C-alpha cells in the first residue's frame, strides 16, 4: 500500500492543476458562450469579403426587383 503514499499526492497535485486551469479558463471567458465557437470550424473563415460598394448598393435598394 506504500504506492498510495505516492499516488495520492500526485492525484492532489493534478487536482490542483485542474482547478488552476479551470479558474484560468473561466476568467478568460472561455465558458461565456458554449454554442457559437462550435459552429466556427464548420465554415471557412478566410473567404474574401465582397467588394464594399456592391453590398451597399444592394442593401440600399433591397426591393428593386418586386
Amino acid at each position: 500500500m506504500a504506492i498510495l503514499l505516492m499516488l495520492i499526492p500526485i492525484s492532489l497535485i493534478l487536482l490542483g492543476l485542474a482547478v488552476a486551469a479551470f479558474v484560468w479558463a473561466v476568467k478568460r471567458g472561455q465558458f461565456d458562450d458554449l454554442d457559437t465557437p462550435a459552429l466556427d470550424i464548420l465554415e471557412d473563415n478566410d473567404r474574401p469579403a465582397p467588394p464594399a460598394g456592391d453590398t451597399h448598393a444592394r442593401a440600399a435598394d433591397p426591393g428593386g426587383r418586386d
Partner: protein
Amino acid sequence: MAATGTCHHCGEALPAQPHMAALGGSTHAFCCHGCAAAAEWIASADLDGYYRLRSANAARVGEALPDLAVWDRADVQAEHSRAIDGGREITLLTDGMRCAACAWLIDRALAREPGVIDCGANAVTGRIRIAWDPARTALSAPLQRLAMLGYRPYLAGSEAAERQRTGERRRWLLRLGIAGLGMLQAMMLAEALYLDFNSTMPVPTRDFFRWLTFLLCTPVVFYSGWPFLSGALRELRERRLGMDVLIASSTLLAYLASLVETIRGGPHVWYDAAVFLLLAARMLEQRARSVASAQVDALARARPAFATRERADGQREAVPLAALSVGDVACVAAGEAVPADGVLLGDGGDEAWFEEALLTGESAPVRKQPGEPVYAGTVCRERPARLRVTLTGTSTRLSQLARLVEQAQAHRPALARLADRIGSRFVLALLPVALVVFAGWWHYQPERALEVTLALLVISCPCALSLSVPAALATAHGALARIGLLAVRADAMDTLARATDIVFDKTGTLSDGRPVLAATQVLDPALDTAGALDIAAALERDSGHPLAAAFTRGDAAALGAARVEAVPGRGVQGVVDGRHWRLGRADFAAARQDDGALWLGDGQRAAARFVLEERARDDAAQALAALRAQGLRVHLASGDGEAAVRRMAATLGLDDAHARQSPEDKLALVRRLQAGGRVVAMVGDGLNDAPVLAGADVSIAMGEGASLAHRAADLVTTGGGLRRIPAAITLARATQRIIRQNLAWATGYNLLALPLAAAGWVTPWLAALGMALSSLIVTLNALRLARLKTPMEAP
C-alpha cells in the same frame, strides 16, 4: 402569386405578394423588404452557411430601419464604452439573437465592416461586444449592418453594470466547477472507504483517507455552497424557514458530523453527502433566473435612453437620461416617452395629452393643463410638450414600477411556494421526530443512536420536494422560449394550463395587422384615384397606426403633410398641398353615417372612400382548430366594424365574435366570462388591449405589437405566428402534469423513507444515495418536458 409557405429568412407566413429574390441560383420568397435585403447581403457576403447552421429562424427584419445616429454621440460613448488599444469598445444588447448561428453570423458580418477591430456575440446573453477604431468608422456604421440583418441594437446598462454581470456569471461557474472537481476527488476516496466491507483497511490508512476527504470537501462546502449558507443566514435573520435553510443545514450537518466522526474515529463519514446535487439545485434555479433577467433587460429597452433639454438660451440639445437634472426644462416630441417626472410648462392654451397606460393601465390619453405633474415613461400624444423636471432616475414613478416588476419576477410561483411551505413544515416536524428517535435508540442501543438519527435526517431532507417545481418550471421555460414565447410572470404557465376560454383581438393578432386596400371610390371630381391615395398616404405615413401600412407606397414621399394630428378613435387630420384634410371614420372626415370604411374629406364633404380588408394570418385557421381540439372556447373581440369582424369570424369558423368593442367592452366581456367560472386567456396586440391583457387570467401579447402591451402581458411572443399558442398550452398542461407527478413522488418517498430510517434499517450512505436518487428522478422527469413534441414542431 401563391401565398403559401414561409419566408426564407424569418420563417413567418408569407404575405399575399411575397418579395422574391434570386440567391445562389434559386429563387426564394420573403415576407418583407428587410428580410430579402438581409438574405441578399448574407448571400453576397458568402455567409450563407448561416442558413445551414441555424437551429431557429431569424427575427423578422421589417421595412423600416431604426435611426442609429445617437450612438455616435460622444456622451453616450463616454458612459457606455471604454477606451482600449487603438479604439473603443462597447457592449450592447440586441433582440432577435435566437441561436448560436445568429452569433456566428454577427461575428462574421461585423468583422467585415471597415474599422471594426474585434467583436464577439454571445447568443446566451443576447449581448454583442464591438471594438472599433473611431478614426476609421463611426459606431453607427457597423450597427447599421446589425440592424439591417434584423438585430436592432439597444443600450445595455452602464459599462460598470455590464462588468458586474459578467463577473457574477463567472463566479457562479467557478463555484459549480470547484464543486465538481472537489466532489470528483472526494468521491474517489469515499468509494474506497465504502468498498471496505469487512473493515480490512488499516485504521491509519482509513483515517488518512478521511482527513483527505475532509480537506477536499471544505472548499466545496464553504466556497461552492456559500450562496446557500448566506441565503440561510438571511432567511434566519428574517425569521423564516426557506429552502436555503434546509439545504444549508443538511449540508452542514453531514459535514460537521463527519468531522466529529473523523476526530473520534467513528464507524462512518458522510462528507460526500449531496453537496454536488444541492449545487444542481442551484444550477436549475440559476437557469430559471437567467430567463427572468433577460426579461428585465427587455424592460430596460422600453425606457427612453435620451432626453431633449432646453438650454437657458432656448437652444435644444439631446442629452443622455443621466445628464438630466432636477430643474432642467425637457422637451418631449409627440409620440415620445417622457424622460423624467416633471411639471408641464406653458400658458393656458398649452394643454397636452399623455398616455399613462404604463403607470395606470388606463389606455386613453389623459389631458394635462400646465402646472400639472407628468410622469416618466408616459407617452406624449398629438402635441409636443415642455416640462420642468422634478424627479429623475431611480426616484421616478416609472423606476418604482420597474422595481415592482422585478420584485414580482423574484416572486416564486404559487406552486413552488406551496412546495417550500410543505418543505419547511416538514423540517419543523422532522426535528422533534429526530429527537424522539435519538432518545429511543439511546435508550435501546446507544452506540447506533447518532448513526440512525443522521440517516434519518439525511434521507428525509426534502430536496426532491423543493426541486420538483423549479426543475419542471426551468425546463418548461426553456421549451417555451424555443417555440417563441417568453413568460414574464411566474404564474403564467399555471394559469395557461387551466384556461378554458381564449379571447383574440383581431388586428395584429388573428390578422397580420397589414390591411390591404380592397376598393377605392373617388367622389371628388377634382381628384383621381392615385391623387386620393397619395393624400391618404401622406396623412397616415407617420401615424404608426396599423391602417397606415395599406397606403404605404413606393412613391409616398412625393407629398408632404403638415400639422398632422391624430384624433384617437376617429382618424387623422392635417394639411396636404395647402388643403385641410381629414382621414378616418365617415362621421369625422365627411360628416356622414359611419359605415366601417375609411373616408377622406375636409370634415364636411367627402372626397374618397377606401375599403380596407384584413386577411387572417395564414396559420390562424390551423391554430384555432388546434385550440378547439384542446377543448378551449374561442372568442373574437375587436374594435373594428361589424362587417369586417363578421367576415373574419366566417373565414375562421369562429362561434363567438364581438364587433365595435372599446377596451372597456373587451374588459367587460372578459369579466363576464370570468363571472361564469371560466378561466380566460387573452391574446392581444395593440395599445388599447393593455387593460384587457391585465384583466384576463393570463395574457399573451404578440411580439410585433406596441411595447406597452408587452408590459401588461404575462407571456410575450417573439414572433408573429399563431401556432405557438396551442403549442404553449400543450406545454403548460404537460408542465402541470409533471409537477404533480414530481410532488407525489417526492412526498411518497419522504413518507416511506422516514419510518424505515427511524427503524434503523437505513445506513447513512444508503440514505445519501436515496436522497440523491430521489432528486435525480425528479429532475429527469422534469427534463422530459424539453423533449415534448408540440404542434409547433410537428405541424
